[in-house]
């Protein structure tokens, strides 16, 4: 066919993955929002741009960032993961308890905390894949189970970590950068690789976009679902252990409502609740926007109760504009 070379050229116009211009093009809407917020806070909030505040900001978003990765993946399958906040509490409590009461060596205690998350995530994934119960219901129930388990294990009280080395996990630095920020960056890079450089990543897009066609295309639907919720559990638990380390204690009340911010970051970052659409970079900016709202409003001395209200409004506005941008592309018309 005569236009063969022509076509190959045109494939080249838009690289399959990477490149700054593609990133900007894909995330234009929220980048504008992000930049506006940045400029506004730089002008009106003293110290916003100071190194100390930047470090503080990045550290404060790290927990939400790690949760948002798992939540985003579950949303990409047109599902949800509401277990993450409760899992933050459970894994923190379990890690500290295994350190204090069972005398496990530090690395093993950390792994135990994380494994709890993997087990819970696997259970979520298996129940969702095999029973067909909606992920909202399954993970909501699991949230309740995990929260209860955290209280039961801790005896209703925060458990203080007696091993001081444990606190380094969350409070240490790599050069000038706090460790939680390092974890966040590494995990987002892994998310990027998963979505763009692996078969499993494409299977996630496919399964989220059209589950029936995914099955007919020879995609192992059960495997993809179990993977996504297991990874989400793992990440929540890891975030929980890091948080417990920062607070030097496992607190059964930790992480209440964290799923809200994680969902907000994913959705502001352009992840479609209908499934099949989502980008690592977008969600990262979503996380930063959520973090900047809290941080900036604190610097501006806005009553923290108002922060909830303002965050809510921003979520709706951001998603509305993202939807308008995608109109005609996704699920509209005939």
């Amino acid at each position, binding site marked *: *066919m005569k236009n*063969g070379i022509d*076509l*190959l050229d*045109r*494939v*080249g*116009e*838009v*690289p*399959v*993955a990477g490149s700054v211009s593609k990133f900007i093009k894909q995330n234009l809407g929220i980048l504008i929002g992000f930049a506006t917020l940045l400029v506004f806070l730089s002008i009106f909030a003293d110290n916003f741009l100071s190194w100390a505040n930047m470090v503080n900001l990045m550290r404060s978003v790290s927990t939400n960032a790690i949760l948002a990765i798992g939540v985003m993946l579950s949303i990409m399958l047109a599902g949800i993961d509401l277990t993450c906040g409760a899992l933050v509490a459970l894994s923190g409590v379990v890690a500290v308890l295994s350190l204090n009461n069972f005398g496990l060596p530090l690395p093993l205690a950390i792994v135990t905390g994380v494994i709890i998350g993997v087990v819970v995530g696997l259970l979520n994934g298996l129940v969702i894949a095999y029973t067909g119960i909606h992920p909202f219901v399954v993970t909501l129930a699991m949230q309740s189970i995990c929260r209860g388990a955290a209280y039961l294990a801790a005896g209703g009280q925060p458990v203080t970590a007696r091993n001081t080395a444990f606190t380094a996990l969350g409070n240490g630095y790599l050069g000038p950068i706090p460790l939680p920020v390092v974890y966040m960056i590494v995990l987002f890079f892994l998310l990027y*690789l998963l979505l*763009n*450089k*692996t*078969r499993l990543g*494409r*299977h996630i*897009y*496919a399964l989220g*976009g*059209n589950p*029936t*066609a*995914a*099955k*007919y*295309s*020879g*995609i*192992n639907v059960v495997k993809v679902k179990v993977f996504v919720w297991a990874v989400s559990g793992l990440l929540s638990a890891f975030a929980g252990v890091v948080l417990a380390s920062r607070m030097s204690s496992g607190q059964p009340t930790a992480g209440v409502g964290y799923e809200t911010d994680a969902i907000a970051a994913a959705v502001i970052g352009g992840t479609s609740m209908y499934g*099949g*659409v989502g980008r690592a970079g977008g969600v990262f900016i979503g996380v930063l926007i959520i973090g900047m709202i809290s941080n900036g409003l604190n610097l501006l001395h806005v009553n923290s109760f108002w922060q909830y209200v303002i965050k809510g409004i921003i979520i709706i506005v951001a998603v509305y504009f993202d939807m308008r941008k995608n109109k005609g*592309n*996704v*699920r509209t018309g*005939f």
Partner: protein
Amino acid sequence: MTQLLEAAPSFLRTDENIVDSRPKLVEMKGVVKTFPGVKALTDIHLTLHQGEVLGLLGENGAGKSTLMNVLGGIYKPDSGSVYINGEEVHFDGVLAAQEAGIAFVHQELALEPFLTVAENIFIGREVKNKAGLVSQREMETQARPFLRMVGLDVDPQMMVNSLSMGQQQMVEIAKALSLNSRVIVLDEPTSSLSENEVENLFQIVRKLKTQGMGIIYISHKMSEIFDLTDNVMVMRDGCYVDTVPTSNTTEDELVHLMVGRDVENYYYRTYNEPGDAALELRDFACGPWEKPVNLTVRQREIVGVYGLIGAGRSELFETVMGLRNGGSGTVLVHGNEIGARDPVRMQQHGLAYVPEDRKTQGLFLFGDVMFNTSIASLGDFISWLRVNERKEKEIVVNAIETLNIKVSSPQTRVGTLSGGNQQKVVLGKWLATKPEILILDEPTRGVDVGAKAEIYKIINELAAQGVAVVFISSELNEVMNMSDRLAVMREGEIAAVLSRDEFNQDVILKHALG
């Protein structure tokens, strides 16, 4: 004649060869509609008289649906005018068109599955009782006469999702009647109906016609056009081509008008000496029938599978592929017995199944052509966090070229493509896996004439290259012309396997009906 008409200035290109004294229900003049980057309609004329069934013919992408959406108030035309009963109208939405008496029965039915028949008929104008609450009983009473008019013998209290496709269509028509519609647009109404349901639909259409209603009938099936319509209007590439009285035309002429050239060798087949058995089913039983099926498909051979809707054709091969649970008996691929069957493993054994319903089972509509054609063969270019982009592009460009998919770039979203091109994308996805056994389930359903011919040619080529092909179809002409052998299915079993010299319409139908 046609060439002359094409060359003539637009004011001459009207339906001057139709002389009809009946009052005009609909008249569209010089309608133009542009979408960003595409001129969807150029200077279209349409006239529909009282009591007329007007066939609307054209390849996918010819602009039929766009034109009907203009008539149905969904799109506003850029220029041109629409007259209903001689009065110019400017619809600003579906409701306005509905009030003017225009009803649109979409190809994909637009009923609410979890509402009752009566609720669907009166949706948006629910009948209320004195207390201002919706009265189920009153709605059901009012629905009954309309259901009788379309010969639908179901309880108006029934949930729509428990009705067959044909019955649902009748509910749509009943709804149109209840709206006092004078014009009904039927968009490929028979694509998912059984033969009985088709016959019933035709009777209703004829009855409505005698009552003075105007029907616009969109279809790809020539037999239906000749059966049902008074006049046929042909469109091509968004342009008006011609309107001809059905009794004065032939299938060849219509195809010529649609395609703009003669389609030679519509069915394309070169016969080969079959090779070794590729796929064998031995006493394979599945579905509610549990009847043993025996069938062998050899390399370089096309085995047609014909049967009425509900004969268990798709069920059989979906079970073989592991897409459905169950199935007992033996499946052999190249002589080796297959143990556990699931879609992933069957693909590794060299099987590919192109499903019946491309929109729900075949395509990722949000994704581009690149994503869709490569999704089943990712292993060829992704490994260990490395994406071989060169290889990926090759797969896509190869699919676009061998299948002649009409796209502006591999980044075109498949949701925007015509039916024929979408079908080619699904086919391309499976050809990229280099299958040795290719099962095609209704590969030309809802595909226009030009694309059909191309698909036949590709299937023939694959067989010649050694692929064993199973060709499931409910179009008798198609399977008779494309198959080496034909398996006729009835109630979950193979009633007969006929060889080429035994192909005969009556014999095949007799086996299919039992």
